[in-house]
């Protein structure tokens, strides 16, 4: 199949950037989108031009490294799919496809399609953990967890931290990402002792980092490659409200 790629090219964080068109006469249906970019890059290198920079690693949809806007949609047109798992059979011969980096105030562009998502790590560092020292846990079966809660917790824990939710949100909010972590841990008995502080710390950090607020657009859920439900945002709001009423935020401490 013949395709035209319009790719965002930006040399550096300070460069203005622009869309550049590339003809791809040799695309095939069983090629992934990233494999198409591989082919383009091989061609560019041979011609003495600079290849397109893009983040990717596992190429099986689990590491969360890849991701950009494909014709305006984070990770492209196929539901529940990361960019690396998007195959060209989703497109038609003659299509023009626009690839741009995730756009958000909290995700500055590094080069071409590569953005800096370290803000997501900072949200987790603020409180997205259970402070269980290595060796301190009781026998795994000493903490029975209802199958229903374990399954729901797993639904939330499936988040791969790709940042598509932030890129899709008109407010640049990281609520779905944060809610997924808060729900994953908050649904488990092990997560209860730190539940309130976790909500206070993570939400506060999220606001500090320049992410916007949630106004229930639902775009995040629509693009999430792992199908994380916005119901988890309701859980976050509840946890945050209860925590704000009952406790004040404390810094993370060693003991």
């Amino acid at each position, binding site marked *: 199949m013949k395709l035209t790629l319009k790719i965002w090219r930006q040399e550096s964080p300070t460069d203005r950037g622009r869309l550049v068109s590339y003809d791809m006469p040799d695309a095939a249906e069983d090629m992934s989108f990233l494999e198409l970019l591989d082919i383009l890059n091989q061609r560019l290198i*041979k011609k003495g031009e*600079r290849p397109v920079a893009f983040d990717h*690693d596992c190429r099986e949809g689990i590491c969360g490294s890849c991701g950009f806007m494909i014709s305006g949609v984070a990770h492209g047109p196929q539901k529940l799919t990361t960019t690396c798992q998007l195959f060209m059979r989703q497109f038609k011969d003659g299509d023009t496809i626009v690839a741009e980096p995730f756009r958000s105030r909290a995700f500055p562009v590094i*080069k071409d399609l590569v953005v800096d998502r370290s803000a997501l790590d900072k949200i987790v560092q603020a409180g997205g953990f259970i402070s269980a020292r290595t*060796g301190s846990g009781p026998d795994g079966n000493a903490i029975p967890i209802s199958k229903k809660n374990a399954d729901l917790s797993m639904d939330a824990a499936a988040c791969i931290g790709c940042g598509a939710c932030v890129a899709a949100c008109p407010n640049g909010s990281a609520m779905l990402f944060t809610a997924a972590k808060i729900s994953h841990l908050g649904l488990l008995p092990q997560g209860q002792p730190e539940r309130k502080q976790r909500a206070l710390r993570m939400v506060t950090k999220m606001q500090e980092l320049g992410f916007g607020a949630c106004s229930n657009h639902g775009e995040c859920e629509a693009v999430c490659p792992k199908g994380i439900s916005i119901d988890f945002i309701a859980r976050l709001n509840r946890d945050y409200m209860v925590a704000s009423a009952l406790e004040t935020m404390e810094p993370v401490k060693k003991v």
Partner: protein
Amino acid sequence: MELNSKVPSGPIEKKWEKHRFDMKLVNPSNKRKYKVIVVGTGLAGGAAAASLGQLGYEVEAFCYQDSARRAHSIAAQGGINAAKNYQNDGDSVFRLFYDTVKGGDFRSREANVYRLAEVSNAIIDQCVALGVPFAREYSGYLANRSFGGAQVSRTFYARGQTGQQLLLGAYAALSREVALGSVKMFPRHEMLELVVIDGHAKGIVVRDMITGKISSHVGDTVILATGGYGNVFYLSTNAKGCNATAIWRAHRKGAFFANPCYTQIHPTCIPVAGEHQSKLTLMSESLRNDGRVWVPKKAGDQRKPWEIPEDERDYYLERKYPSYGNLAPRDISSRAAKQVCDEGRGVGPGGRGVYLDFSESIGRLGKGVIEARYGNLFEMYERITGEDPWKWPMRIYPAMHYTMGGLWVDYNLMSNLDGLHVLGEANFSDHGANRLGASALMQGLADGYFVIPYTIADYLTKVKPGSRPGVDHPAFKEAEREVEGRTKKLLSIGGTKTVDEFHKELGQVMWEYVGMGRNEAGLKTALQKIPQIRERFWKEVRVPGAGADLNQELEKAGRVADFLELGELLAYDALMRDESCGAHFREEHQTPDGEALRNDEKYAYVAAWEYKGEGKSPELHKEPLEFENVHLAQRSYK
């Protein structure tokens, strides 16, 4: 050089306990005076960095990914073994130990494997405490599934994303330490050199992948947890960025490389679709619990799978291995698939594939049960192949997956280079010549959570607190100059071929001559071809751009340059090991029914190779393997 494995004396079930008592401890107030460098933040590195930070050491952790959470441990699907015996089906620490030694075809170190089995239960407890949402039964208790190479059900899992959940647990623990300041995290940093001063590993040189800046980091000890070298085959189930540069640089600095030829080909991967293929995707081995593997009995049978009646299908694993059936170990299942395809009975494009068929299980258990167990894997398969596995049986074929070989380590997980510790897939120690399913996650976390925190203390008591050199030490300056020189050289060749072209060429040679079946002539061909590719690489490669910013081609070039050296050692080790064992299958040595035939008299040893310089043959050091608890026997899964 004498290789001292430092295995403690005494009966096997008491060794670790005795050793933990015999090892010295670091005074709590002295811990903060020691700095530990950890390279790699997967299960082994992430767990180690978090645990050492908790203990009070100053830790610096490095990964090439943009976040510690993305290390390739994340892609492990099926599960993690532990000897909990929650199923009441006869499991025990000794049985897990026994299965692992046997699964490794008697080429691993007994004492290490026993310790692995011994700490396996604590790993599950720790992961639960960290909030890993393992699968549960309706009682609320932990669920298990079966895996290849075992007749008990001892694998704990979190849907098809066990590796992800275990890694996110370790990453969360690590994130807490980062917040507390006990671990300093350096994402998007790639280790390019190990610095050894007077025989002690004292630090590393890294490249900041965003700014291109080369800098040194000093430590009292260095931990490498950088994974395996499967990408030497170009196509593998590893992430694209997985590389051997850290361990290869350490090898060039004196660390012995053990058993490089033990490379595992995973039997259940999605077959290659075409020339453009950039990586291979694994379908969890857990699928073999409910899927039946078959090919048509007749060669060249072009009928649709459902048009082939039962009696014209060959369920070859069930036929050849009636007691293990579809759950035969990975090496055996992979070779059996290759064999039926070589006979012209393979299915799908190019005839390199076999069916993995769930119709019998769906009929017996219902679609709902199969969907709950493997739903995400079915989706993944459909997304990649465009075929609906609920209608068509899946097509699978073996692919390069895991490397049992790695840097040689003693019982304390320290290499022969003083102060250099190696954890997880990067070391060689626990899986022998073949790893069993759900054992990689177990080993990574065992090393990181429950072994290194003890053994590193014993090592550090021999290092004077505050004695580590500064970054201005001449050894660091020289290492930085070397790295800069190498970068410049790669950028200045200005040839006509891309890095990927060389990588693919190397991969083809490795897969053809050093893959599932190996023989003397083929290995000698590989040993001729690899140096030729390497020579052309250094003359004809084109690495665009400059060194001073994000340059992904430059990153790849450095990694491929190292693979071009490692590949040769791998082939050489395969040639010198003139026996078959586990995943290392020398066609000259097989039983009458085509199974691996070991030669215990001559080869019951670990082959640890010493680097002797460019263009020189490596020197072999042998660590003899003794089996006092598991009797050496021909493996049988019949």
